[in-house]
């Protein structure tokens, strides 16, 4: 039907409309810029056709201000919805410039449509043009919203990454701070233990010199003392066999006496069995007590040597504050770290395969830190009682050390990822549990112009290799 009418341009249509309205005795109304045409919520019974100028549509927001929602030009219809449906006006309409409007109430509109085909045709064209224009704008707005949403999403992702990045940096700093504090603590403890430990050592040396001299008058006792001071340790199985044999040999002796006698090496037992056979139990008891003084002294010496070694290792292990490169042997770093970590490593079968290596220039505190991390990971990956291997070697231009565990190995797709911060394959929380150990270790390796790499071995388990320039 519409195809039967030639479509007019907007200005032609408006000119025609003004002419037909004039014929009906209606004249356009003028509004000054800023004047309100329709208010939101108002009951409206007229259709406003914009002839000249522009009108602003405003929607009231909860804070009482109008938000501009649309700007309309000539040919636009105002109040369409409220005019036809009788519902309150949907938005404010305000003159954005001085403008002219044709105002049609229902009576005039119906009369024009019924009596003047040209009026009917032009109002119909304007209505259709307005509706299709509004529809196009809705589509356009939806596209714009989608674009904005996407943009917002991108910004949010960028923000999230920045926050994650900050979090990682923060964790790393905390971790480093923690290690530095621990290093200071270790050095402090080592120093505090060092003094009493030295005193202990000096006094034991004194006793070791003096006691044999004091017993010199009684050669049998002096000999038992010497025996005690060098008596080998017996495994608990051996000790039990000897205990049982002694109880059979001397059924009249108490079990606890037999236990004490079972510590005697054969050479010492010879002297004592003479006294036992002649039932001189007081003398046997005295000789046994002298022997035990000897073993006690030996025990103190062994324990003291262990303590001295530990203190020495603690001191060199925690030399983290020394930032200059030193010329050291990797073996020394390994020995220090193994001593400090003995409490964990004693649950595994530790294999050392250490080559003769030239000295390398490095910061030993940092190498120890890498080694501690690798060994600690190996302990977590390896079932107790299974093998952990520490190996060293030298290439043309580098020296390297490897730590091999007997865990499940590293999933191939994570082989590089495990060196990134916050990536962990451990299920439970470790000592720190931040997944930073390997990331920091690699950083330290790079600072030494070295490399830290990982690979799996066919036997199951992973090997981590630290190589340093020779």
């Amino acid at each position: 039907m519409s195809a039967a009418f030639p479509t007019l341009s907007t200005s032609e249509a408006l000119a025609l409309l003004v002419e037909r309205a004039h014929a009906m005795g209606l004249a356009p109304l003028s509004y000054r810029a800023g004047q309100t045409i329709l208010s939101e919520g108002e009951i409206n019974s007229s259709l406003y056709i914009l002839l000249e100028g522009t009108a602003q549509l405003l929607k009231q927001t909860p804070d009482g201000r109008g938000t501009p929602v649309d700007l309309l030009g000539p040919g636009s219809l105002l109040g369409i919805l409220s005019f036809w449906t009788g519902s309150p006006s949907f938005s404010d309409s305000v003159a954005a410039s001085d403008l002219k409007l044709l105002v049609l109430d229902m009576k005039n509109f119906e009369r024009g449509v019924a009596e003047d085909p040209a009026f009917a045709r032009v109002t119909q064209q304007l209505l259709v043009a307005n509706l299709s224009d509004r529809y196009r704008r809705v589509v356009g707005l939806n596209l714009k919203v989608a674009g904005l949403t996407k943009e917002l999403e991108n910004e949010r992702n960028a923000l999230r990454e920045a926050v994650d990045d900050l979090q990682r940096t923060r964790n790393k700093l905390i971790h480093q701070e923690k290690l530095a504090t621990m290093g200071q603590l270790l050095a402090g403890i080592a120093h505090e233990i060092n003094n009493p430990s030295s005193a202990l050592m000096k006094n034991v040396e004194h006793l070791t010199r003096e006691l044999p001299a004091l017993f010199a008058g009684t050669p049998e006792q002096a000999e038992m003392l010497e025996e005690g001071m060098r008596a080998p340790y017996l495994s608990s199985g051996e000790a039990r066999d000897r205990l049982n044999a002694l109880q059979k040999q001397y059924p009249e002796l108490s079990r606890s006496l037999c236990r004490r006698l079972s510590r005697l090496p054969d050479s010492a037992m010879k002297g004592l069995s003479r006294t036992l056979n002649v039932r001189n139990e007081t003398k046997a008891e005295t000789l046994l007590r002298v022997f035990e003084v000897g073993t006690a002294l030996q025990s103190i010496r062994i324990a003291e040597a262990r303590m001295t070694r530990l203190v020495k290792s603690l001191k060199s292990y925690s030399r983290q504050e020394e930032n200059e490169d030193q010329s050291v042997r990797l073996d020394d770093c390994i020995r220090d770290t193994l001593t400090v970590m003995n409490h964990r490593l004693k649950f595994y079968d530790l294999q050392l395969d250490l080559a003769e290596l030239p000295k390398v220039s490095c910061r030993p505190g940092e190498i120890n830190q890498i080694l501690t991390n690798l060994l600690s990971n190996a302990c977590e990956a390896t079932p107790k009682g299974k093998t952990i291997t520490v190996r060293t070697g030298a290439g043309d231009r580098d020296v390297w050390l490897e730590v091999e565990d007997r865990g499940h190995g590293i999933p191939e797709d994570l082989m590089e990822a495990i060196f990134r911060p916050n990536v962990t394959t451990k299920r439970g929380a470790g000592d720190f549990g931040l997944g930073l150990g390997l990331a920091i270790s690699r950083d330290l390796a790079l600072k030494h112009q070295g490399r830290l790499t990982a690979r799996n071995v066919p036997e199951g388990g992973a090997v981590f290799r630290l190589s340093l320039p020779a």
Partner: protein
Amino acid sequence: MQQKLYMLCVEDEADVLDVVVRELSVLEDVFPIETAGSADEAREALKRIEADGDALGLIFCDHMMPGENGVELLVWMQSQPQWKPSRKVLLTGQAGLDATVKAVNEAGLSHYIAKPWDQDELVRVAREQLSRYVAERKLNPLPYLKHLVMDIVGDTLRASSASDT
């Protein structure tokens, strides 16, 4: 022959084990001592005690040992009818809270001694726990009386004599 009531000391460090045994040997004229360097050796010792028809009154056990740890051993003993009544003492410097909670809840831990310990305390705890064993098992206290704590076994004696009349 009178059933022997054993004490078993389990400790992986030989020199520490030596000292524990030396300090407990003041009770050995009544309560013989068995030693073990690991949980496996402890099981062998228990087998020997059982084979000889003897009983275990008390176990002193370290926690951190290569192989099976002390608490696991104690939990296992608690599941064995013949070792369930034995008094169980952890003698350790290294058991964390989790291990200790497990020992109390699942192994019926009787006492906890932290290293380094004091000889008087060690012997006192041993006498007390052995007395409780004798009392709970309603054993004739006479052969062991020398080292028992009268406050603990006295009550049981009175109770048992009261039920006799």
